């Protein structure tokens, strides 16, 4: 029993350390004194973080990515919410079909989805328009809020709805006074998931608007191609930090394990 315990603890920590190692490299690289991605870092300089926000070279892609991520996650939630709600409220084959459709984009290799969007927008003649990447991301990632909202709706005791009906609430009143307050954390978490992944998505963004707009992942990749700079590491560190912050807040204000599907304890 003791040996098994030691082995499993050891295994857990090795996996943990390997998972964290790249973060250490990236954080280390981001504070290099000179404009080079040396690891371990030589010297110490936080100026690269300033560049991320001040240098238009980096600020523009950052803003582009943020805009795309916010719009895409809003759109994804807007698409997913009625589907999840409908499937919770009714048991129809059609509803299930739509939900299944919503799960598909995430289940295929993203390159294929990206190719689909590329050909589609080229044929339509909208190739390179800003909204195309928003739509593409929203559709590609709609699975995530769909799952989190479905979990959330499943968690709403239907008798709450019935209780409110029996007390005189119309369908709309139920939605406003009972469903919305209870589903809110799931809406937020669905939003957060799309936001984080959209912010870092590369291939679909490249294939839809790569020629016109530069998103931060493209910028990072291009930095990798055309001249390493610690700013790209700084950008990643900022992203990781925001992710940690976002999900720590989610964890603080609701139940993160449950949002990720764990049995509530």
């Amino acid at each position, binding site marked *: 029993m003791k040996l098994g315990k030691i082995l499993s603890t050891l295994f857990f920590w090795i996996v943990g350390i390997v998972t964290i190692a790249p973060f250490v490299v990236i954080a280390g690289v981001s504070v290099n004194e000179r404009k080079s991605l040396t690891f371990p870092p030589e010297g110490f300089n936080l100026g690269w973080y300033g560049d991320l926000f001040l240098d238009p070279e980096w600020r523009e892609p950052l803003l582009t990515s943020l805009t795309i991520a916010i719009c895409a996650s809003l759109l994804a939630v807007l698409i997913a919410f009625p589907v999840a709600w409908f499937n919770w409220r009714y048991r129809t084959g059609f509803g299930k079909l739509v939900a299944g459709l919503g799960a598909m984009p995430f289940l295929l290799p993203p390159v294929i989805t990206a190719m689909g969007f590329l050909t589609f927008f*080229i044929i339509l003649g909208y*190739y390179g328009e800003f909204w195309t990447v928003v739509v593409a991301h929203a559709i590609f990632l709609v699975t995530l809020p769909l799952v989190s909202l479905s979990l959330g709706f499943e968690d709403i005791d239907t008798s709450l709805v019935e209780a409110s009906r029996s007390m005189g609430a119309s369908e709309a009143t139920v939605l406003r006074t009972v469903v919305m307050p209870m589903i809110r954390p799931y809406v937020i978490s669905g939003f957060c998931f799309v936001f984080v992944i959209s912010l870092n998505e590369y291939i679909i963004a490249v294939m839809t608007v790569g*020629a016109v707009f530069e998103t931060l992942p493209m910028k990072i*990749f*291009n930095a990798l191609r055309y001249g*390493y700079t610690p700013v790209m590491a700084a950008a990643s560190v900022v992203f990781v930090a925001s992710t940690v912050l976002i999900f720590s807040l989610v964890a603080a204000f609701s139940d993160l394990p449950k949002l990720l599907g764990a049995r509530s304890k």
Partner: protein
Amino acid sequence: AGEPLKVGVYGGYFQDSFDSFVYPEFTKATGIEIESIAVPTGEAWLIQLQQAARAKRAPADVSMMATVSIMRGMRTGLWATLDEAAMPNVSNILPTLINRYDDGGLAAVGAVSWYITVATNTDSFPEPIGSWAELWEPKYADSLGLLALVSNSYLLEITAKTFFGGTDYLSSDETIREVLGKVAELKPNTRLWYRDEAQFEQALKSGEIPIGQYYHDVTGLAAADGFPVRSNFPKEGGLRESGNWAVAGVSEKIEEAQVFIDYMSQPSVQAMLARNLGTAPNVARESMDLTDEEFAAVSSEIAPVIPRYDLHFERTDWLNQIWAEMLQA
């Protein structure tokens, strides 16, 4: 004059340099305002321009594009035919860097050029490499970094020049395959087939990969920064590649665009680019006031290897296919 002239150059280092050294001077000289547009490498920009052309829009009036892209655009008549009379300075540009429609109409003018040469880490190899042929030597096993695409490494041309007497040798499927066979012999020596410049640059600087083909200007800048690297022109010559100015056919600012191209074609401007961007000038050496040292930093008197653009243009799929088969076998 209302809208500014939209000029697109490769995003990043290029665009930065143009923004700080070129456009302000140009505006000062001509009064024409410029809006700077970032252009991606590869063909994405071409597709973008074509899409826009269908909608009669021009995301940029003037764009800097690789030669093969220029040729592709010419095929669909994407570029405006330029008026040479309006651009007296264009006559300075080396004739090989001028692209014309079949009817002789001027489609594109060479903008800047750069060289791909042999770069080494001087800690590992203190002696310069004298010939491309050395790359084939067994002592460099698993230590080269080479560009991964047939369309950006131009190893077919380099190999043809080095071992088969010149790029003209690439005249038939058989000879191309023969040259490709020679390129394939590089595989045991190649540690990294890189797609991304910086990926190799980092490895070169650190000595992780001590030798390979690389951009002469970039290596020079790194050396100037104190890194233990060197680029030198092999005796067969460096590979010279260039970017070209072309004007979108749907542009409503063709006249301003011609003023811009004319301005850029002046020897003095070319010299200025060489000093500040490290690009190789597109005009005759004599017409400029570059010192020997300045010239050597960006170019060489040795006759360059010129890419077989015709081949890359006409046989794209086939070349890529046999190249990929060679590489990934």
